[in-house]
């Protein structure tokens, strides 16, 4: 490996620039260095005006999400020696840029508010008890660190700007739908407001998830199948109606 890498960082200052551009920096490489270290080197030694959001540097907070050589990744989890000596770092394209590598992800909080909240079954005895057997399935969804790399890589959000809530919030809906004490079905919301039909299950979200959550297989497809239950499968629809009539 070379002792120096060329780091191409996307720069954009809304107060000065009309559009963004790349700026190249030479950064000395240290053993075990991650891309966030290299960006910090630039910030501390070459250009203190560089804006970058970060917190834990341990892949737990999700703040340093960016696109490294075109792939959405966490800067703190991407080793420099795994990429080569020419590295480009750009902000997440799916979100508006605040400055340089910092993006405004507040759109996600608005989406989160729309998802029908946890609604417990009526007349539950307190304290609420859940068996281990019912917890394990949605446990992987709790690993989400809300880095929004999945939202960034999703072509429906990134290239087509359809009214789709995105992979992160399909996971959120699935974790609520799989809760044993929850009493509502979110398929109506996902189908009519959440734009779940726009997802074409190409699994990019799953492939970029730093927590290795099987987003497509374990959250999106089960939700799409629930939509089939409610909108496309007359047999299941009939079965559901009969169960409701019998009070089950």
């Amino acid at each position, binding site marked *: 490996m070379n002792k120096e890498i060329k780091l191409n960082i996307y720069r954009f200052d809304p107060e000065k620039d009309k559009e963004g551009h790349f700026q190249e920096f030479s950064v000395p490489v240290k053993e075990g260095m991650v891309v966030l270290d290299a960006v910090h080197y630039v910030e501390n030694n070459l250009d203190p005006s560089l804006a970058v959001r970060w917190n834990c540097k341990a892949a737990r907070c999700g703040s340093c999400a960016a*696109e490294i*050589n*075109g*792939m*959405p990744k966490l800067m703190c989890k991407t080793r420099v020696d795994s990429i080569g000596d020419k590295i480009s770092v*750009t902000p997440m*394209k799916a979100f508006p840029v605040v400055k340089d590598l910092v993006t405004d992800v507040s759109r996600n909080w608005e989406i989160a508010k729309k998802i029908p909240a946890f609604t417990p079954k009526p007349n539950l005895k307190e304290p609420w008890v*859940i*068996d281990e*057997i*019912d917890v*394990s*399935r949605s446990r992987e969804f709790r690993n989400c660190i809300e880095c929004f790399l999945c939202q960034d*890589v999703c*072509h*429906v959000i990134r*290239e*087509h*700007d*359809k009214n*789709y809530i995105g992979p992160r919030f399909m996971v959120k809906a699935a974790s609520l*739908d*799989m*809760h*044993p*004490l*929850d009493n509502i079905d979110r398929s109506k919301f996902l189908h009519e407001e959440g*734009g779940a*039909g*726009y*997802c*074409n*299950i*190409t*699994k*990019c979200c799953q*492939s*970029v998830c730093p927590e290795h959550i*099987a987003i497509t*297989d374990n959250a999106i*497809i*089960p939700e*799409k*199948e*629930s*939509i*089939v*239950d409610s*909108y*496309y*499968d007359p047999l*299941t629809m009939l079965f559901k109606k009969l169960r409701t009539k019998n009070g089950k």
Partner: protein
Amino acid sequence: MENKNSNVLGSIKKAIPELFEPNWRLWSFIAILIFAILALVVFPVKEYKGLIDPFYSPTILVLPVVGLFRLTCYAYRKDYYRNVFNHPQSCAADERGDSNSRGYSGETSLFAFNNLHRYLLYAGIILLPFFYYDFYVSVTYFGGFVLRFASVLILLNAILLTLWVFSCHAFRHVFAGGNVKCYDCSLNPKARKGFFNAQSMLNKRHEDWAFISLVVIILLDLYLRALAAGWPIDFRILQVL
């Protein structure tokens, strides 16, 4: 001249990038499709000494159902959305082949037909026993029990098709308990969740089962064609007459 040629090549590459991608899944699928149609039309081999061709099991009339089952399968959907329609071609920013200037409706209009996948799954489950029956016919054709290499292939084909069908996401939802909110509320929670977990293990490899099972169908078909054409490769492994 060379420059002009490379420009033409460059423009074709830009227009139809998938022609130049090392995209073995797409190309092998297209090759298999063309081969299968040609073989079935030009040189039909329905059966050779008790060895039934998988395309005729139980009858060639079910081929459209099987084809639609594969077409609406989540594994193949991912493949053709990515590799045929470039929505997106790749997850990487510089190779996506997708843009906001291209129309996109996902599975909200024409491709909403993929939601019928579970009905084709029901048909697939009904068809599976025929492949095991073919194995039975192949080993009992001469009377007694004669295990030929082709019988092993027929059994392998049946097992792989079973793994593909039973690892299906729709199967997971409808039959394996994917639609269940509360496993603890069922009559036998451990068995219910255990079945779901076991099916989920299979489901993790659904894309692999989808492709391997397709390849083995073709290999079996080719082998039976070679036998019908008189190739001396009808090996007997075990014979109890």
